[in-house]
């Protein structure tokens, strides 16, 4: 009985994923190991150790990590701030997050260039009204921290969307019950809210990490490869107009898969610790 249900409930998805995600992905692995003439080679995997790829991996991890943490915190904060609102406004905000979470590429880059570029609206306002010269003080939209500011534009709403159902799940009654039992607000937050919020927040942060890790069009439009990131290098190897290098692109993608698996392992470990803590 259970076996049949298992097949019925999860069979279609497993079939779909196998046929349309796993099989094509295997081809990438094969391509990274192929020398282009039917033989095997480790050349492309070994090339990942070259300085330009090493820096790119470092930058990608750093940028994704920073924006996942910041976005995770701010998005969760926003979910709490906006919770309890109902009706028209809540709908508008939720829908806005849906769009903003996927606002990327040239349009997003342009919106920020028009705001914070060297001749941007805000840049000029700060300069003229407050005498604050952003670019004179070392800020640049086209640098690491500039990218962080831009990435948060889609990271925060994504976290908001993931966290809103979880935050909505915190019932008002629980707070009242906790207070009724004599809990201080601090105890309510650490004993009741945190254990309930932490698992989805962790899961959401992993999602944000992957989301930032795979961003291509946005960093391309802003840095033109001057800040090396893995998706940019994959893009120029697989998709560009200059040099086609499909095997190297595939090898880079394999490197990304490995990195994602490591971060997932980290997530599982954290989650297990956390659920043990919850049972205590």
């Amino acid at each position, binding site marked *: 009985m259970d076996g049949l*249900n*298992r097949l*019925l*409930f*999860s069979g*279609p998805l*497993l079939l779909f*994923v196998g*046929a*349309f*995600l796993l*099989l*094509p*992905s295997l*081809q*990438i692995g094969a391509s990274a190991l192929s020398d282009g003439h039917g033989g095997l080679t480790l050349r492309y995997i070994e090339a990942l150790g070259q300085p330009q790829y090493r820096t790119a991996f470092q930058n990608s991890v750093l940028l994704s990590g920073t924006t996942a943490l910041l976005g995770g915190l701010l998005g969760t904060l926003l979910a709490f*701030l*906006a919770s309890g609102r109902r009706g028209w406004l809540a709908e*508008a905000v*939720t*829908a806005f997050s*849906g*769009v903003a*979470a*996927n*606002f*990327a590429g*040239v*349009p997003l880059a*342009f*919106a920020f260039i*028009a705001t914070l570029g060297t001749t*941007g*609206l805000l840049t000029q306002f700060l300069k003229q009204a407050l005498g604050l010269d952003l670019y004179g003080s070392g800020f640049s939209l086209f640098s690491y921290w500039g990218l962080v500011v831009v990435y*948060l*534009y889609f990271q*925060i*709403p994504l976290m908001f*969307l*993931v966290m*809103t*159902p*979880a935050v*909505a799940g915190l019932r008002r009654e629980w707070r009242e019950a906790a207070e009724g039992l004599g809990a201080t607000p601090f105890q309510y937050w650490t004993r009741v809210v945190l254990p309930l919020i932490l698992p989805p927040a962790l*899961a*959401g942060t992993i999602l944000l990490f*992957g989301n930032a*890790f*795979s961003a291509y069009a946005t960093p391309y439009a802003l840095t033109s490869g001057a800040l090396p990131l893995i*998706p940019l290098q*994959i893009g120029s190897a*697989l998709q560009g107009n200059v040099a086609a290098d499909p095997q190297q*692109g595939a090898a880079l*993608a394999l490197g*990304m*898969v490995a990195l*994602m*698996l490591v971060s*997932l392992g980290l997530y*599982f470990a954290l989650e297990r610790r956390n659920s043990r803590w919850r049972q205590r």
Partner: protein
Amino acid sequence: MIRRLLLALFGLYFLLPLLATAVYSLWAGGNRYDLSAYARILAEPQFRSTFTLSLILAVETVALSLLLLIPAVFWANLRWPGLRTALEVVSVLPFVVPPIALVGGLTALYKGPAWWIGTPQFLIVGYTVLALPYTYRALDVGMRSIDLKTLSEAALSLGSGWLGLLLRVVVPGILPSMLSAALLTLAIVMGEFTFANVLLFNTFAVFINYVGQTQGTGAAALSLLSFGLTWLAMIAILRGSRQGQLSLGGGR
């Protein structure tokens, strides 16, 4: 008070870039501002056709994603933890598999039939894969926020079947998550460029990209229009589903 201030700061961060785009989209040279960029974009015959195509694909992708994922995530959370781990891993793959490589793999594997791969509907497969990380995560969070074990024991002891449990108890319970998933999927499909570009289907993203490479103020106007239209489409979905939720709630 602090809450207001913080919300205002968030609002500022999210609205300023749009405002800057808006100011610029209205610019008509010198000190003149008008709506000519918008008129020009709206007059493009491709604007409507590509937008409609993308919207249809988005709705179809949402339907397919939910249909495939809800039962599986439900079962994984209730009875099969191993599947959950597997899904966790699988659901990050679309992040790390470059779309151009994925589309290459898909087309090398599936060469027919023509009524499938020759129509834009072929894209739904790829879009469902691309949306997987978001749909899975949203549904999993939702599934875990309801007390699945207690609910299912209660429902089963009252004589409900598994399917009845899923449709009448679980789905209404995870409706907020389903909406998150739907909204994200919708936005992904409206913005996806690589698949459509390589498979030569003229979607909204392909059109936006083209305008972005050839027009100045028009590109700004179009990105605002697409932001606004996608937003409206989402509000419509939220509206529609809220009414659905009410009727579902009434039946309980």
